[in-house]
């Protein structure tokens, strides 16, 4: 099943938390470039844990995991750092900075990559318009509704044209229509060349926007519709 062109590849991947909890075990799969992947499973199945491993937030306890040709068990700090710069992340609890404006929140990854302010401004504006919040650039996140905050978090994740976008329940707080808009966005991002891996509970969305569906249950992979 291993594949030379695979962007992410896992073999007997296992993760045990410090508390002793085995959150993932025996995960073996490949994710090829430019695919659109759903991760589903009940609450506590290990979706967020798996996504965290894809950006080096957690290191494998055993088994093999390579992401964008980086071996995540042996990777140096510097490699992980470079990997993260090529990865857009939408966190389950969006993690927006409430002390900073929407603009500053979205500009953060660009700034980390050393962009100049003259290029940052139009780019942020473009992405914000793309998620439909072009006029809220100078608002503070506290002044946005939950769904609007979610869209800001999405804008932050896609602002740097990442090779991989990891989305942890990006539609969790959204009404059906907005969720569909978000899915359109993610599909567009996928079409423009990024691989999108998205954890979700929403089976209706999966039916509506087709993609590869990987189902976890209690830390193990129970289905893969590849």
């Amino acid at each position: 099943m291993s594949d030379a062109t695979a962007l992410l590849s896992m073999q007997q991947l296992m993760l045990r938390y410090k508390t002793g909890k085995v959150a993932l075990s025996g995960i073996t799969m490949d994710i090829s470039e430019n695919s659109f992947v759903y991760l589903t499973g009940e609450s506590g199945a290990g979706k967020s844990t798996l996504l965290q491993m894809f950006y080096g937030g957690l290191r494998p306890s055993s088994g093999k995991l390579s992401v964008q040709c980086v071996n995540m068990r042996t990777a140096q700090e510097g490699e992980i750092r470079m990997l993260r710069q090529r990865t857009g992340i939408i966190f389950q609890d969006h993690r927006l900075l409430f002390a900073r404006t929407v603009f500053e929140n979205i500009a953060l990854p660009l700034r980390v990559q050393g962009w100049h302010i003259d290029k940052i401004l139009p780019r942020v504006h473009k992405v914000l318009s793309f998620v439909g919040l072009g006029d809220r650039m100078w608002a503070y996140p506290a002044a946005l509704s939950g769904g609007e905050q979610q869209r800001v978090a999405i804008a932050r994740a896609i602002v740097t044209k990442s090779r991989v976008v990891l989305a942890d329940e990006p539609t969790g707080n959204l009404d059906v229509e907005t969720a569909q808009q978000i899915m359109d966005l993610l599909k567009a991002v996928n079409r423009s060349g990024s691989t999108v891996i998205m954890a979700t509970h929403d089976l209706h969305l999966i039916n509506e926007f087709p993609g590869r569906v990987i189902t976890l249950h209690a830390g193990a992979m129970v289905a893969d519709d590849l």
Partner: protein
Amino acid sequence: MISDLLPEHMKHLHLPGGFQLPPFGLHQWLALIIVGVGLWLVGSVWLGLQAGQQWVNSWQDDVVVHVYFPHDQELALIRAQERFEKWPSVASVQLRPVEEGVAWLQEWLGDTGLDAEEIAKRLPLVLVLRLGNHDESSEFIFADIRDEAVRQGGFINEDELLLARMHGYVASVKYIVLFVTILLALAMALIISNTLRMMQLSHQEEMALMRLMGAKEWFVRMPFMLEGALIGAGAGFLGGMLLWPISWMVSTISDHFHLSGDVGWISFSLMLLGLVSGCVGAWISTLRGVDDRADEDLDS
């Protein structure tokens, strides 16, 4: 087009990370001023010590104690001389030559017809004790000399003693000064590091997020390093500058002291001290697990 996007009041965008100084708020200014004045205190105390040292040095060879004996107690005098000579703290013991006494009396009496020599015979005999290495124990030396003199039937001049004793006080002050300096330096470091730590606590999430986005460590920490260095250097500069008026005042009061060279050095060291302690404080306070969410609580 860019200026279209940027509203008027946002002309000075303040993005996190990198070579960007965090905005200098009330806390920063407070810390800078207090640390600056603290450093100035340290500097002035050292300056005072320097001045005291100079004062003491100008005395050093002059710390003498006169022990008087009645003119007919020559035996007691010789006995006392022998005993004092054995004291390690007494550098030399001399009998004041009679001529000196005569000359002094002559001058004192004026150029009258009175025969000074005749009177001089009746003058008390005087032992001149010159004290050697002069340290804190001198407090007891003086008492010992007094006791010994009285025991041998002589007496000493209490005023002279008081003056000589001053010398010992100045020497012992040095240790207090050292202690105070260390304490103040610690307090100043605590103030800087607390200020930085406050800044970091309030930017904790931001720092964690930047790390998750692949930012290098220096990029994440640089603003705080810059801030620490700025507070430290600013405080050092303030402290150093404030030293000059002090030294000017001191030299106006008395031209015993030549401190300008020392002031330069001390204020330079203060600035360096401030800068280094600011940077080190910043580095240390950025070290602690700021990435850890459970660390939000300082309790643990």
